[in-house]
Each structure stands twice: as structure tokens, then as C-alpha cells.
């Protein structure tokens, strides 16, 4: 399908739809993509990003990242900064899987050391990190303990001996969104989530063992700062979120906002999934506090999974996780709204930045990134498909253009049903094993849906972000073992 004729090329990797594109737009929409990616862009992106441009209080532009595709309300890859006084907050700008995110940790092992134990590692991870429909975690919590966890995030894990102090320093927000209030969360959400801490979920969630080959290091200085120092070093990357807890919070507040949006606040939106309320309203603030609980649950979920991964490696190699150099590189969130300071027309202001399927990428020198990354910039973890590899990138000063945001993954291009018709899980598994990638899955159909060809070319996506000045490539990581949720 052709791109809209009104689409204007701003530079090689930036495209703009003007406010005249549709009635009600308050700001123009900007899409980051190469010429090739824009021509292949899901047409839903153009409609949705311009719907976002109509939301009250939006500042600068409504953005979409190069891995964008259609989502609910906002496109996946959608970013919007709202005026904290006059703007709205919208669950559609955050997503159902609140704080779905990525975590990366290193080891001091090389591929040659891991290869003979790969099956054993993947099998043990598959057993220790539950995934799939209805899976429950090994941590048994009462509902009241779970409420504490939702308010404290990874800090709760530190108290329980499930985290290292350094883990929290290299987690976005220190692993805890301050101001989370579990009294703003429904009993249903608690019941859906309280036994899911330490589980991957399903769909595109996974845990992967990867290798950093010397030819795939793009910036040695920054790679070193991030802990990638040995040729063919093995790392572990995983992707998951707030499970049923976050999904229920999003579902609950979508309905709260639909009930009050027009009747109480006179706001009309072009799509019910863009239901919103003024950020300063009681409903807006309640959702913000509940969303923070879901974000904290996701941090705790990834922290507990990290703990289990350390246990598995420690058992298999009969060495302590410390001795194996199992340090976290970073933990980034994909689906959140946060108050951040950004320059608007040259003046620093508080902005409520919605990122939906997009990653924050703060530049070197930012006060909000760990001291150890002050010179390198914030690590950005871009998950590719399970066949093609992933990237570790770094934030750049030029990212200020888009509220310091970059892509989050490769972005789907093929529907799940289409992929399932094209590929058979068992054959895919055998083919991947032949290529040196050992996979375990709870569902053959689910595996076929995640075939590499169902996604955009990750290299094109990361190149587009780099050329647009949003983030720079540091290391490309190749998969060798994968647990698919």
C-alpha cells in the first residue's frame, strides 16, 4: 500500500505528516524510518500516529519509531510527550503489557565454553523459568505480600535476597517507580498476577543465550563500558512484562476512562483505544499510580527471572554467579508513561512521556543514568527475532529530538496466522538447531508464529535509528539458545 501523499521527507530517516493531514491534529506526526522501511510501513501506523497527534496537551510531535506497526490506540513504536498540566494520560499509549521490557546480563564465559553445555543450560532454563498459558512462578506470595511487591518493584527483591545491589542501579528507575499505590489496583488484577512472579508469559516473550562475536562489535569503547570485553562472550537476554496483573490494570482503566472521558471532561477521541483522562484528574492520577504498580511488578518479575538464570548457570558450571561474571548490563522498559525533563522550545519542562513499544535512550551525561554509563550513554536493548539476532545500542545527544527514544525490537510484518501457515514449529526447531540455535518451547504453533521472516529486518531498523541520531550500535548479539514463551 502506498504511503500517504501528504507524507513529507524531512531527512533521510525522518518523515512528517502535517497537521492538515486530518482534522483535529494539534501537532504534526513524525515517523522515523529509512526509505525502504517507510515504503513497507503498515498503513495503520499513519492513521494511528495522526490520531495520537489529536490528543489534548501533546507537545512537539506524535512520533513513531522505525519498528512501528499498528497497535491499539497508539501504534507500536508510538511516542507522545504530554504537557503535565494540560495534557492527558492514555492507557492506549502504554499498552496492555505495562512495562514489558528487556534485560541483558553478561557472563565471563565464551561460546566455546558454553557450547558443550548448551542443551543442559536451555533445558534447565526452560524448567526454571516457567512460560506459556497459565504458568505460575516459584515464589509463593500472599496477596498482601504481592501488594508490597507491586509498590516496591525490584527493591522488594533486594530485601528478599533475590537481587544484587548493582542490579537495581542498572535498572531503569532503579527498578521501582516511586508513587505506586496498590489501593488503586482492582482485586481482579491482584488475583490474576500474584502467583505469576518469575514467569515469562507467551507470544513474543523469550529468554535467549547469545554470543558477542568480535566482528559484531561496532563500538569497542562503549561495549567495554557495558561489560562486553571478551571475544565470543556469552550473554543472556530476556523479554517479558507485568503478566496478567498489568493486563488487567490496563483493561480496568480503559473502561474507567471511557466512562468519564467525554461525559466528565468533554474529550473526544478518534478511537476507543485512545480513551484518556486529564493527567491531573483523579482518574488520570489513579491510573498513573496503578500503572506504576504494574511497572514495578514487571521489574520484580524480570529480577526473579534473573535470579533463576543465575542459579541455572551456577548449577551447570558449578561456580558462583559472581565468579561467572553474571552482571546485569541494563533493564529497559517498553510500555510506560513517565514524567521526565525535556527541552520544549528551548525551555526545560516536565513532560509526561508515553512510550508504547519504544525504548528510552538517554544520552551520555544524562543525570538519570547510572554513574558507570555516564560517558557511554544509556544502554538500549533491542530484541530481534529468535532467528536473526539482537542489538545492544547506546543513547545519543541527538535523541533529544524524540524525547530520547528509540526502537524496541524488529517489529512484526507477518500476521501470526500467516506465519503459522508458512512454517511448522517442529521443522523450524530442527532448522534452527542445524544452524546452532537450540530452542525449547511450550507450543509448536507459538514457535512458528515467531519465525524470523515474520519480522522486519532488524539490521534495517537499527541502522535507521542510528542514521536518525536516536541511538548507536554497540554490539550485535547472535542467538545460540532460546526458550520461547
Amino acid at each position: 500500500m502506498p504511503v500517504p501523499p501528504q507524507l513529507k521527507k524531512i531527512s533521510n530517516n525522518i518523515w512528517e505528516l502535517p497537521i492538515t493531514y486530518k482534522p483535529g491534529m494539534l501537532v504534526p506526526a513524525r515517523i522515523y524510518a529509512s526509505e525502504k522501511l517507510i515504503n513497507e510501513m503498515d498503513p495503520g501506523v499513519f492513521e494511528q500516529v495522526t490520531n495520537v497527534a489529536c490528543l489534548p496537551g501533546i507537545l512537539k510531535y506524535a512520533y513513531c519509531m522505525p519498528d512501528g506497526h499498528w497497535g491499539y490506540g497508539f501504534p507500536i513504536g508510538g511516542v507522545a510527550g504530554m504537557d503535565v498540566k494540560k495534557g492527558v494520560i492514555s492507557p492506549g499509549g502504554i499498552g496492555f503489557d505495562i512495562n514489558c521490557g528487556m534485560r541483558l546480563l553478561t557472563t565471563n564465559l565464551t561460546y566455546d565454553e558454553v557450547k558443550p553445555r548448551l542443551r543442559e543450560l536451555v533445558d534447565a532454563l526452560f524448567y526454571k523459568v516457567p512460560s506459556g498459558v497459565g504458568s505460575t512462578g516459584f515464589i509463593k506470595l500472599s496477596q498482601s505480600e504481592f501488594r508490597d511487591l507491586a509498590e516496591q518493584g525490584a527493591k522488594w527483591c533486594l530485601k528478599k535476597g533475590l537481587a544484587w545491589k548493582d542490579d537495581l542501579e542498572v535498572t531503569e528507575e532503579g527498578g521501582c517507580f516511586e508513587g505506586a499505590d496498590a489501593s488503586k489496583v482492582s482485586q481482579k488484577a491482584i488475583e490474576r498476577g500474584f502467583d505469576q512472579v518469575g514467569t515469562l508469559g507467551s507470544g513474543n516473550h523469550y529468554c535467549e543465550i547469545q554470543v558477542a562475536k568480535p566482528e559484531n562489535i561496532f563500538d569497542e569503547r562503549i561495549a567495554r563500558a557495558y561489560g562486553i570485553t571478551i571475544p565470543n562472550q556469552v550473554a543472556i537476554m530476556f523479554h517479558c512484562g507485568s503478566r496478567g496483573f498489568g493486563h488487567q490494570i490496563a483493561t480496568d482503566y480503559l473502561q474507567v476512562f471511557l466512562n468519564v472521558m467525554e461525559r466528565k471532561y468533554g474529550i473526544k477521541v478518534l478511537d476507543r483505544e485512545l480513551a484518556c483522562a486529564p493527567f491531573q484528574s483523579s482518574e488520570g492520577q489513579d491510573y498513573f499510580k496503578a500503572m506504576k504498580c504494574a511497572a514495578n511488578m514487571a521489574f520484580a518479575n524480570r529480577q526473579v527471572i534473573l535470579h533463576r538464570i543465575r542459579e541455572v548457570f551456577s548449577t551447570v558450571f558449578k561456580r558462583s554467579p559472581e565468579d561467572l561474571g553474571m552482571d546485569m548490563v541494563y533493564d529497559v522498559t517498553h510500555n510506560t508513561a513517565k514524567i521526565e525533563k525535556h527541552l520544549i522550545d528551548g525551555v526545560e519542562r516536565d513532560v509526561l512521556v508515553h512510550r508504547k513499544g519504544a525504548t528510552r535512550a538517554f544520552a551520555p551525561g544524562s543525570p538519570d543514568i547510572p554513574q558507570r554509563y555516564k560517558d557511554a550513554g544509556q544502554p538500549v536493548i533491542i530484541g530481534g527475532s529468535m532467528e536473526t539476532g539482537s542489538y545492544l545500542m547506546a543513547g545519543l545527544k541527538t535523541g533529544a529530538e524524540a524525547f530520547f527514544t528509540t526502537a524496541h525490537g524488529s517489529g512484526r510484518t507477518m500476521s501470526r496466522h500467516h506465519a503459522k501457515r508458512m512454517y511448522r514449529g517442529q521443522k523450524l526447531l530442527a532448522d534452527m538447531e542445524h544452524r546452532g540455535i537450540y530452542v525449547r518451547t511450550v507450543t509448536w504453533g507459538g514457535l512458528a508464529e515467531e519465525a524470523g521472516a515474520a519480522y522486519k529486518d532488524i539490521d534495517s531498523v537499527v541502522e535507521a535509528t542510528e542514521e536518525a541520531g536516536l541511538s548507536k550500535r554497540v554490539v550485535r548479539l547472535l542467538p545460540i539458545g532460546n526458550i520461547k514463551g
Partner: protein
Amino acid sequence: MPYKYLEEVATADVAFEAWGSSLEELFISAADAAMNVMVDDIETIEKEQELSFEVSNPALDMLLYNFINELIYYKDAKKLLLRVSSVKINQTDSEYMLSANAYGEVLNPEKHPLSADVKAVTLHMFSLHHTDSGWKATMILDI
């Protein structure tokens, strides 16, 4: 099968269309369609337990939204895979009230061929309408 999956509608998720000669029949079809996303063969769900639940909403389409969400809630909170056996919908001055009888069992990966986990029902392209032959709904599930 009174439902079908729409292949190219939802790139990252699952879209389906469900139908029935009555509103009640449509709700049961939609429940099966949602369950079939999570379990490849819903005939493997046996009658180990029976339960009933109620939902209400001023809007008919949102009643369907709440109804499917209830099944997702039971899947996570009680680990129950459910088939809906009967639905009754009454209209009062201010809202629609639904009561449903369902049966099913605790999910068991050894017995039930599990597929994708459903996170939520979305309102994207969500529709419920009367047709010449009864009722039809289109919905997209986030997975």
C-alpha cells in the same frame, strides 16, 4: 464452528469473527473463539467443574467485552479453562445484565494443547451487530 480467525487483520495478535442466530448464541461462540486461541483443541476441556458468573454494562458491545474478559480472568486467577454452556441476557432501564453458566477444568499442559496466552480483549475494530441471520461480532485479542 461458529467463528473464524481473520488472518491479515492483526499482525501481532489474533482477530476473529463470531456469529450466532441469537445474541446468546453469539456470546457462546465468541467465548469458544477466545478459548480456542489459548487451547488448540477446546474439546479437550472436560466438565470437571461448573460455575456461573454475571456481568453487566450499559452498552451491549461492552457487555460482550466484559464477558470475554471474565473468561481471561478465570484463566489467570483460577487457572480454569472454560466452555460457556448457557447465557441469559436481560435488559433493565439502565443496563444489560448477563448471567452465564460455564463448565471446565484446571488447565493442564499434559492434557490441553496450549497455544498463545491471551492478555486482553481490545477495542480495536471491536464490533457487535445484528445481521440478517442473527448476530455477529468482530474482536481482536492482545496476545
